[in-house]
């Protein structure tokens, strides 16, 4: 049967060969992209359908009390090695050895995505209880975000070492790991016993091809079916070729700038920081540099957040007049503000860096771009930094709180901190009361936008793919590429 299905060739700009999804080094776009097709989580977020939660490895989710959830597992889910998934696998996958322990390989993923999970208990072969430390308003969403990938406990026990395991883990996803050539090529092979139906491709080959021009050439010559990380400037070129098309653009991933006033004394001045944020013409970046593919982001509000969203909140926008006012008010007298950047980490990063510097210059702020070779240098300099983040699930916890929470680098490296912000953030994360949450969220936004700015949004960062027109594939607004079979929606309540 595998013979008739096509093989898919994907050229990517970078690859990582550690494929264990909860490994610390897996917190990266390039890892998510590949791992997404190898594993299933307990729940599945349908990013293309308003982040709707669907059942995946779990087929029911019952809240027993404030901190206890009970799930029933799907029957007859086969791991890549042919064994059947049981509650033991879930207990192990979410257990201290893999995920929750302080020294577990999954500690970083756990802290980022599942920090509220306190215990996992097997009720019977098909039923598991998940116990949270506190109330968690977004617990279900978390289960469908990242980190609840279930692996085969037996296979893990059989692996000679964690390192050996991490390069070839066994999951339940639509594809299993085939040949892996370190840092160069990963081939996934259809897992025909997949519970969700027959995977549409016999195999998927991810090939590392760091040069964008080479990726495009490869796409044109038909060597690849899909190429990733296309920048807006190449869209017209690809669309101009018969049989090629561009997909992607809708994005729930965003670019931000952070300020480190505690590391860079000039930035202590709140007015200066506000001026910095207001001097940015986000529309010009999104429309000019990104050719309209990116959307300017002015606030922390996203429609997918639903009830907690406040459509009336203005956020920050380009306002030269106010910048002038603020600067006059401030103690800033044209000192040089360092803006370290590695220049090549994000698409269009260097261009954007330079555009921003020019915008600030026009506003009378003297920002100096400093090219760095590595993050240590960037961290050492402080000043203004580039960062990015996305909505893994439809809640501000995943955005504002995840991006500059106390464990994130801005705070942990002492660039900025704010006690009230942290307290409110904690509240946002641990209370289910909508009104309280709305209040907390509002306060947090006031702090980072007006009272003690430390971060300012720029725009969405679209993931643009070029592909052969006959490939039927729909990208996510997030970096994950889902290449498995279409599954009917099984919405969670």
């Amino acid at each position, binding site marked *: 049967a595998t013979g008739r299905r096509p093989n898919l060739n994907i050229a990517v700009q970078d690859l990582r060969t550690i494929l264990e999804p909860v490994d610390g080094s897996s917190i990266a776009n390039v890892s998510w992209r590949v791992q997404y097709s190898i594993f299933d989580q307990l729940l599945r977020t349908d990013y293309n359908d308003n982040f709707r939660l669907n059942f995946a490895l779990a087929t029911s989710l019952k809240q027993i009390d404030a901190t206890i959830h009970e799930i029933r597992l799907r029957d007859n889910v086969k791991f890549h090695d042919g064994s059947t998934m049981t509650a033991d696998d879930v207990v192990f996958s979410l257990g201290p050895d893999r995920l929750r322990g302080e020294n577990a390989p999954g500690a970083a993923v756990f802290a980022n995505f599942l920090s509220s999970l306190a215990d996992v208990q097997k009720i019977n072969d098909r039923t598991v209880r998940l116990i949270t430390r506190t109330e968690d308003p977004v617990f279900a969403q978390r289960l469908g975000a990242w980190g609840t990938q279930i692996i085969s406990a037996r296979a893990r026990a059989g692996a000679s070492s964690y390192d050996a395991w991490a390069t070839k883990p066994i999951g339940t996803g639509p594809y299993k790991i085939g040949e892996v050539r370190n840092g160069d090529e990963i081939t996934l092979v259809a897992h025909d016993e997949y519970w969700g139906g027959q995977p549409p491709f016999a195999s998927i080959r991810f090939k590392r091809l760091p040069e964008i021009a080479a990726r495009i050439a490869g796409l044109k010559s038909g060597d690849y079916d899909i190429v990733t990380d296309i920048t807006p400037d190449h869209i017209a070129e690809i669309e101009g070729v018969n049989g090629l098309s561009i997909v992607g653009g809708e994005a729930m991933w965003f670019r931000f700038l952070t300020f480190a006033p505690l590391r860079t004394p000039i930035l202590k001045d709140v007015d200066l920081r506000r001026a910095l944020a207001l001097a940015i013409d986000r529309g010009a970046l999104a429309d000019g540099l990104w050719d309209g593919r990116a959307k300017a982001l002015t606030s922390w509000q996203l429609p997918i957040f639903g009830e907690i969203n406040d459509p009336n909140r203005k956020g920050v926008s380009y306002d030269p007049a106010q910048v002038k006012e603020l600067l006059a008010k401030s103690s800033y007298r044209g000192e040089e503000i360092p803006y370290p950047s590695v220049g090549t980490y994000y698409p269009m990063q260097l261009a954007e860096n*330079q555009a921003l510097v020019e915008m600030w210059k026009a506003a009378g702020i003297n920002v100096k771009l400093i090219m760095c070779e590595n993050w240590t240098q960037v961290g050492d300099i402080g000043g203004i930094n580039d960062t990015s983040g996305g909505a893994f699930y439809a809640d501000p916890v995943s955005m504002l709180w995840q991006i500059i929470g106390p464990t994130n680098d801005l705070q942990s490296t002492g660039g900025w901190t704010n006690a009230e912000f942290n307290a409110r953030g904690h509240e946002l994360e641990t209370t289910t009361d909508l009104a309280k949450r709305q209040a907390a969220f509002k306060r947090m936004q006031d702090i980072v936008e007006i009272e003690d700015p430390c971060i300012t949004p720029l725009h969405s960062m679209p993931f643009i793919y070029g592909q052969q027109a006959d490939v039927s594939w729909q990208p996510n607004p997030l970096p994950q590429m889902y290449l498995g079979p279409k599954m009917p929606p099984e919405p969670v309540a």
Partner: protein
Amino acid sequence: MKTATVETNRPSPRTVDLPTLLAVGWVLLMLFTALAAPLMAPYEITSIDLRHRLTPPVGFGGTMLHALGTDDLGRDVASRLFYSIRTSLLVAFGATAISVLVGTGIGFIAAYFRGLVEHALLLMIDVQASLPFLIVALAMLACFGNSLTLFVALMGLYGWERNARLARGLAITASAQGYASATRQLGAHPLRVYLRHILPNSAATLLVAATVTFPEIVLVESGLSFLGLGVQPPMTSLGVMVAAGREYITRASWMLLAPSLVIVITAVAVSVLGDWLRDKLDPTLK
């Protein structure tokens, strides 16, 4: 046949031919551009125009507004090119000179001294040859930070080991030849033997080495600006322009073409001049 009364005692010097003239002309033009860049550039090199990105040059659908088109930030390619010539000329000529001089010097010293000194120098050469330049650059950056003078010096390290080995090989061959030992037996200081005799006799090869080193440095330099060394935004150089243009090779080829052409033509000019110089140095060709 001309009559025997022609009173030329000296062989007539080769007249400077057309390619050489063109080469001289080009190099002068580059020097002029380097000096007059601020006067020639119609725009500031940093002035960004995000609404007029990637406009093609005049003649390819563009306007005289940006004769050579604009780049990915809507900056004027011509203006950037002029400034780039200025930086690259400084960096590449300076560094090529250093690289060839240092290399030749060390090569000659290694050839002259036998024993420990030679081994020590060869060790240096081996180390440099097995170390990717990237790591050397990182070391420089970590130790000394970034300044243009230092950067030129660092770039001077590029390729010195190749020049050193070439020079050593040439010197060893040359000193095995009669004229070197003849001069030596006159009581000449080794410096004289090496500088006045072996150097001119090895010049042909060393000049070729220099012409090869020159474009290499232009290109390597661009790689280093991403490490935070040397030429950094908003400054620009030919290498930086080429590197930026490579993503746009099909989309906006002028971004790559303009600086590439300057590099190539300059390299051609330099090598034509090198050939001319070599011929000048070789009386047997007269």
